[in-house]
């Protein structure tokens, strides 16, 4: 199996389009970091204005952890497009090139072939998330240093002490990877049915946009399906930044306020991934290669 996966990864990383996503993430994160480096203090001062009237705030509010949170929140909405670019091309791109028929005539079962391609898409997605973590977290820590993380939400302000923050990012990036693998598996599933990669990429993004819109509409008819939509769970990584407090309103180190909710979201995303994988295998088994 590893032989097949390595062949697929070799092909993926020989295609120029693969590097668009890495370049785009580097450029976007770099721009955000530059913007905050030049003008970040005034931006933070403005944001903390209401808070400064009631509390004495010292230390570095604008630090690498805060920037990583801002970047993660912004980028994860757009990264699915970059992932669909590659995952949506895995089968349909081969069909379009005409190489799919040559692949299927090789002494490798269709199930293994599709699984190798699927896992290669997942590995690509994970590599993209690692790349994003390097830029968004480690480079930000290098440029802006570290301190306590202060997150302002509409109704409350959470302060997470510095020594209790790093592992939360690792968990958050891990969860984000799961969310992005779900998008990759959807794009991959759609690519089975197409003869060129444009169709699955657009279809995947349309589904993500449609489900995201459904999530924002607070109508009873949509509320029934919301818990089952994968987009409802893609931002559950934020749960790692909700901490428990003791009776003195002090943070409990290493705590997560609602770990069952985060785990439930992870479970639903995993079910989606397995479903898309199984669907891809079944669809490809029955497919007549006419391209």
């Amino acid at each position, binding site marked *: 199996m590893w032989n*097949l996966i390595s062949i697929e990864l070799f092909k993926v990383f020989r295609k120029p389009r693969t590097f668009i996503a890495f370049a785009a993430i580097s450029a976007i994160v770099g721009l955000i970091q530059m913007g905050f480096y030049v003008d970040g203090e005034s931006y933070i001062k403005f944001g903390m204005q209401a808070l400064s009237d009631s509390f004495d705030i010292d230390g570095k509010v604008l630090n690498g952890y805060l920037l990583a949170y801002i970047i993660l929140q912004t980028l994860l909405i757009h990264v699915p497009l970059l992932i669909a670019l590659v995952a949506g091309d895995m089968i349909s791109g081969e069909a379009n*090139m005409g*190489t799919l028929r*040559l692949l299927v*005539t*090789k002494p490798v079962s269709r199930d293994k072939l599709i699984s190798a391609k699927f896992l290669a898409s997942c590995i690509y997605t994970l590599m993209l998330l690692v790349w994003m973590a390097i830029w968004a977290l480690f480079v930000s820590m290098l440029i802006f240093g570290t301190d306590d993380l202060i997150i302002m939400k509409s109704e409350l302000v959470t302060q997470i002490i510095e020594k209790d923050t790093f592992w939360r990012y690792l968990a958050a990036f891990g969860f984000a990877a799961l969310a992005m693998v779900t998008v990759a598996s959807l794009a991959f599933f759609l690519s089975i049915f197409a003869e060129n990669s444009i169709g699955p990429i657009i279809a995947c993004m349309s589904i993500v946009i449609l489900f995201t819109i459904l999530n924002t509409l607070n109508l009873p008819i949509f509320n029934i399906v919301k818990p089952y939509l994968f987009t409802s769970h893609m931002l559950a990584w934020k749960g790692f930044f909700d901490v428990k407090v003791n009776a003195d309103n002090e943070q409990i180190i290493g705590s997560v306020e609602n770990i069952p909710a985060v785990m439930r979201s992870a479970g639903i995303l995993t079910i989606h991934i397995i479903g898309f994988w199984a669907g891809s295998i079944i669809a490809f088994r029955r497919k*007549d*290669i*006419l391209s």
Partner: protein
Amino acid sequence: MPTIIEIQHLSKKFGDFHAVRDLSFKVNKGDVCGFLGQNGAGKSTTIRMLLTLIRPTSGQIFIQGMDLFKHRNEILKNTGAVIERPDLYNYLTAAENLSVFARLSGIRPNRKLIMNKLEQVGLAERSTSKVKIFSQGMKQRLGIAVAMVHDPSLIILDEPTNGLDPQGIADMRNLINSLSRDFGKTLLVSSHLLSEMEQIATRLIIIDRGSKIVEGEMKDLLDPEHVMLEVTASNPDLCYQWVCQSSWREFVQPSAKNVTVIKVQQGNIPVFTRELVLAGIDVVSIKPRNTLEEYFLSLTNPLKNVESN
């Protein structure tokens, strides 16, 4: 000779359309089998079924004595193919393409093997060039190298001369001849170029509208000692009736209206002509035809052939 390919009652339907209908044939070891038919006759569909790209609606395929759908991987390990166009990864080099498909075929490629295969098809000097800059002929040759990289005993080529210039066609012919003669490969080759097929095939299968119409050894079908005579008479029905009732009746071939086609020995042409005239048939013309193209057209579209003559 042992049978390498045996197809039994193979059919494929796409919706209501019967692409292949109850097709049965055999290819023996060492054959260069020409698989002929007009556009849409079902050649490519049959070849795709042989390579497991398409599932048959009914029927069975045995290759090297094994059921294709039960022993798929075992059979495909020993089969190489070029299907219609030699589509390869344009963003990879010739050597990289060959290496990818060698690994997929279950062998560990090394530089010596890759260069050896590229040399066989005359592409050794272009091993590091990306395929996107290759001409159609070069891609076709690389496609053959991909088909041969795991040294299969059976090679299936679907329209291997498509898009090639005359030199490319000649090169392909030489390559196919060499694969059969020097390497003992069994080849199933579909092509539109009948004159080329005539020069390479040892066995012929002709299909029309999904069904087989002829199967046999080339030497039997296009026997140089025999000739197909196309007889046109002013009273064609009488001519056909007389031939069917005469001692020549067993040599009558399927033919178009108004024309009688008969296969006779070269030496018997004067005898046949004399008997025809003595029988009172007003002979307008007797045309000999013994090329594959003429034979093919007479079988697949006799009316058109007569009109074109």
